[in-house]
């Protein structure tokens, strides 16, 4: 059981990496970005494509491929925001939803056209392929690295939000987008940069996780569902909530495999439903 919990914790941090960008984008722009999983998938494919060009499966080339993929995905997000999303802010929420759904369709097909429909395996850098043994438990080095990256991401994001002017601006824009402009700040760029950073995080998570598993064009749907579950459980827009939710979901999943194996598929949805229902028990639910 300790093994499952420990493993769940590291798995949870990978979930957090996936969810962080989604919750960031929602928190500031109120956009429910259904394309988040697709951007994750794109990050993974880009890492696959870039690693050989950057020197093969060494840690250095992997690290630079991850960073470069994340940046490219972030740039794509920026372009998408500037060219398309920006035109429909303030329109019906459903329109934004449809636009991001369209992006899902487009990215899926583009990935298929470039890299084919077959599964792809990104080679694991040799020095990351081992495992730490704690007691009788194996902890793959790779998950530990992902855990560390997750910690760095959350620390950076929290510090930026709390202590930098950029963070203050972001929170101000969350409160009242229009007023930010009336203080001489080009709010369009706040949204663009938040969207780009959110996409960067999606690309980062995808590229980082690429060597750890399979990469194919179906990754988008599998990832987006998990990302939403985590973000919803943590409270939409809340970074710390997403962290707690991701770690808890990881651990509950680990325990679920042992204690209620047949629920494995439905478990996360049961948790999400339960969290939402419990949250609604207060009287003020309609005042949200």
């Amino acid at each position, binding site marked *: 059981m300790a093994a499952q919990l420990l493993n769940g914790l590291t798995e949870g941090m990978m979930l957090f990496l996936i969810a962080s960008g989604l919750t960031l984008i929602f928190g500031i722009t109120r956009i429910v970005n259904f394309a988040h999983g697709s951007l994750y998938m794109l990050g993974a494919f880009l890492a696959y494509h870039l690693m050989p060009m950057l020197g093969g499966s060494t840690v250095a080339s992997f690290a630079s491929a991850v960073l470069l993929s994340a940046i490219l995905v972030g740039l794509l997000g920026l372009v998408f925001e500037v060219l398309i999303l920006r035109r429909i802010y303030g329109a019906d929420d459903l329109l934004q939803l449809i636009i991001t759904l369209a992006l899902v369709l487009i990215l899926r097909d583009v990935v298929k056209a470039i890299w084919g429909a077959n599964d792809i395996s990104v080679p694991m850098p040799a020095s990351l392929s081992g495992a730490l043994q704690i007691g009788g438990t194996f902890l793959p080095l790779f998950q530990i690295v992902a855990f560390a990256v997750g910690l760095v991401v959350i620390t950076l994001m929290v510090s930026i939000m709390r202590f930098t002017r950029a963070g203050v601006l972001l929170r101000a824009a969350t409160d009242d987008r229009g007023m930010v402009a009336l203080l001489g700040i080009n709010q369009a760029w706040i949204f663009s940069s938040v969207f780009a950073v959110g996409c960067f995080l999606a690309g980062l998570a995808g590229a980082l996780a690429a060597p750890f598993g399979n990469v194919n064009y179906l990754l988008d749907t599998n990832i987006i569902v998990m990302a939403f579950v985590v973000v919803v459980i943590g409270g939409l827009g809340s970074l710390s909530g997403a962290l707690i939710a991701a770690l808890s979901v990881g651990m509950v999943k680990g325990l679920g495999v042992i204690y209620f194996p047949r629920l494995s598929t439905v478990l996360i*949805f049961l948790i999400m439903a339960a969290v939402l229902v419990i949250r609604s028990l207060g009287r003020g639910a*309609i005042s949200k």
Partner: protein
Amino acid sequence: MSFEHVQSRWLFAAVSLGLAVAMLMLGPGIALLATEVAIMALFASSLGFLINYGGMVSFGHAAYFGLGAYGFALAAAKLGLPLWLAVVLGPLTAALGAVLFGALCVRLTHIYFAMLTLACSEIVFTVLFQAYDYTGGDNGLTNFMAPRFGLSPQIYAALTVAIVALCIAFLARIVRSPLGLAIQAVGEEPHRAAALGFSPRLVQLVACVIAGTLAGIAGTMYSVFQGNAFPDYAGVGITIDALVMVVIGGVKGFYGGVFGAIIYVLLKTFVSRAFTHWELVIGLILIAVVLIFPTGIAGLLQKLGLSRTARPSGEQHP
């Protein structure tokens, strides 16, 4: 859709009847397509009703479509009930599901409402997928009946069009009834409605049950049409299709779902037959539609003065 004037009621009846009769004269291929369009039109309209009148955006509407299909198919295939009874049980199952899920979901609003409906429909999907001893799992339920009760595509198309027209007339009637006003009132200003003595959650629950039952009717008709039932019918893909239909049809009334279904079903069918990379094409078309006609097809018709079903749109800041 306003039915305040008697003649518009007659007009609707005449158009529906005309459409149903027209079905009988089509080739079998186009009749099959028309049937699919009609069923999806009902499904999208029920979602449009929930969104535009009830103020509730659901990401899990497929749950009721799936329950309608499985309620019917299980009754016919596993319980061996006569088809006429199974056909009634389908929508009834969906209605029961809507009571249960609705009671949970109406406690929440906005995106949280949407997410809980998504969770509910995923739970339905998973149960259908995993309880294969009863539901056939991913293999679904097949071969338990002749598709369309063995009717010819044309006759079934006529039947479907007639039933869908009746359901839409029912929706239109609801909208113009006391209940419809209550649903719109709660959908728009729940606090104001509560302070007038409405129980917002109860009214919303009733709206969910109406929409769920109509979605269940669509699901049952689809199951009869296909002669099968698969867990996919409760999958998020069907919900997304319906959301797209509601949006491209025009988001300010349930009738937008009808336009949306016609366009989207035909678009998806023909684009996926014509292009290898059909998802890319559909994606680009969707973006173009949203950017060019943000008010959907209904909004476009309104702008061109072709539709008098005007409901002023747009947010107004006090």
